[in-house]
């Protein structure tokens, strides 16, 4: 039994890393549902786009071969990694703003239109990625300090998973502080509660929506960059990412910060454990989970009535 628990430990670590990244991805997704009342089916594509931009900023394989940029690629990898972690989400935030501008025409209509529009946007983004970077898989180089692994007992642990878990945890903490301890966070939460009232109180609602969408997109991009060395970077990775975001939101309940975090951890754990013991079926477990959750508990652990139910 003790042996079994020891072999279980690395998978649990994987589950925690995966779960925290799912939580980060879903929190951006949830902010967008809250303020825009739109189910952003393109969220996974923004996640993928973040990973691709990061590849572009990390190595010349990413497509920037102009000699003007050569000195940049001679910089130490740690520096480039930090640049990628800041600049790539900023690019994705701009793409997200573009998407929000398109979405404006669907506000106030049947939520199905927002769903359809973001579905079209997901298709366009995926095809664009295929066109620019090709269908082949990329690998995101990472600094030596966070690659490799170490032994604990008889099992090998990946340093990167620990880095991913810690980084995601820090981001979630910062996000919580931002939402709960700053005036901007207060406006966002108020917007999610009743956006018309926020407008009446004199805030520029269009601008709030634009920024919140950009912010959500940037969170997706950060999750994409951190996930890239674990999942690889393929055009299709967006679809693989949007489904867990859905499951987490449905399970945790719309509007609940800690609901999303705990649901993210649960989903990450389920996926990591099925991947360890039933590799073939690991993706299936996610869909089964979605089905079970929506059937029995569609408002999740702590959800309120939301745009999802319209």
């Amino acid at each position, binding site marked *: 039994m003790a042996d079994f628990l020891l072999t279980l430990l690395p998978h649990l670590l994987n589950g925690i890393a995966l779960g925290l990244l799912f939580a980060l991805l879903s929190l951006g997704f949830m902010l967008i549902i809250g303020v825009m009342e739109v189910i952003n089916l393109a969220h996974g594509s923004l996640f993928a786009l973040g990973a691709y931009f990061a590849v572009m900023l990390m190595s010349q394989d990413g497509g920037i071969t102009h000699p003007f940029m050569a000195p940049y690629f001679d910089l130490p990898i740690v520096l480039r990694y930090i640049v990628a972690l800041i600049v790539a989400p900023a690019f994705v935030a701009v793409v997200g703003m573009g998407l929000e501008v398109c979405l404006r025409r669907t506000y106030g209509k049947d*939520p199905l*239109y927002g769903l359809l529009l973001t579905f079209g946007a997901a298709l366009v983004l995926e095809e664009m990625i295929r*066109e620019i970077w090709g269908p082949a898989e990329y690998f995101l180089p990472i600094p030596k300090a966070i690659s490799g692994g170490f032994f604990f007992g008889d099992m090998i642990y990946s340093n990167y998973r620990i880095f991913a878990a810690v980084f995601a945890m820090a981001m979630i903490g910062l996000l919580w502080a931002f939402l709960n301890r700053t005036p901007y966070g207060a406006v966002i939460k108020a917007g999610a509660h009743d956006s018309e009232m926020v407008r009446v109180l004199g805030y520029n609602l269009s601008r709030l929506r634009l920024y919140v969408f950009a912010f959500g997109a940037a969170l997706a991009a950060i999750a994409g960059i951190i996930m890239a060395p674990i999942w690889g970077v393929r055009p299709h990775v967006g679809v693989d990412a949007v489904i867990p975001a859905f499951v987490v939101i449905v399970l945790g309940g719309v509007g609940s910060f800690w609901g999303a975090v705990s649901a993210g951890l649960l989903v990450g754990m389920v996926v990591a454990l099925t991947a360890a013991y039933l590799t073939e079926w690991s993706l299936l477990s996610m869909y089964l989970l979605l*089905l079970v959750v929506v059937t029995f508990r569609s408002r999740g652990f702590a959800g309120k009535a939301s745009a999802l*139910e319209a």
Partner: protein
Amino acid sequence: MNQNSYLSSFRAWFTAPMLLSFLVFGTMPLWIDAVGLYQYLGLEVMIWVIFALAVNLLLGYTGLPSFGHGAFLGIGAYAFGLTQFNVAANLWLSLFGAVAVTAILGGLVALLISHRRGIYFALMTIACAQIFYFIASKWTDVTGGEDGLLNIARLPVDLGLTEISIRSNFSLYYLCFAAYVIIVVGLWRLVHSPFGKVISAIKQNDSRVAFLGYNVWLYKWLIFTLSCAITGLAGALFAMAQEGAYINIMSLQWSGIAILIVLIGGGFISFWGPVLGVIFYFLARDILGAYTETWLLWFGLIFVGMVMFKPEGLAGMWRDGRTLLGRKPAPQPEPSVTEPSAAGGD
């Protein structure tokens, strides 16, 4: 019965656009080569029209977005092949097998989802479709996995006295056309029957329909199962056209493209929306595809533009065009279908 009553009962069954579609599709193999296209394209269009009509029965008429209908197209194709291989190599039996299996599986899925609407409904269909996809891709003994189910024959049409071979695309096309005629007339009658009124009312406000004493759950269950059965028929025809059943049509992307097609055509406001959408999609694929490999990108952009500026689709443009030209607008099948239902009502 006098002349007039024959005419009005004829009009209840057949309308001018319907007869026009019969004329165009009925003669298509004769002129499709002459306009620079090819016979197989006609076959694909005919099969996808049947599929899109089934999708629109849910999306446009009942307001239920199924993002997983591609899975049922695939199930129909596999069931057709498996009946043919394991039961009897008879066309009618195999078609029946395809429709029955798809209807049963669709009915089971509908048991799980019929109490849902809107986004949750869409989510549940995605989850169910992906589960079918994974089963089909892993259950290699039955479905052939990633390789697909190969060598599905185009079985001869056995009419009792005589047998017609449908080996050529030309003759298979007419089998599909016959299926189209039956399904279009059937669906037209269905959506204009009292049953059809109830499902459009469910689209508008399902709680109010429930207050009126209708069993909303049962109506949704029936319409989903029926839509799946029609999709299964399209899948069987597709298996014959491709001479095999492959997993790719079961993927999420194809289910999404079916929704795209229906919306671009104008399924929300017109019975004929899906038909226009399918023609538009396949022409775009062949024409844009001749110039660029990334035609799906451009098609996606057209779709996004359509949702933003003209969610009524091609059918909506046609209606606006007629109004602009000062002619009376085409008679709408339902005033209720012209407006997207207001979100919720409870």
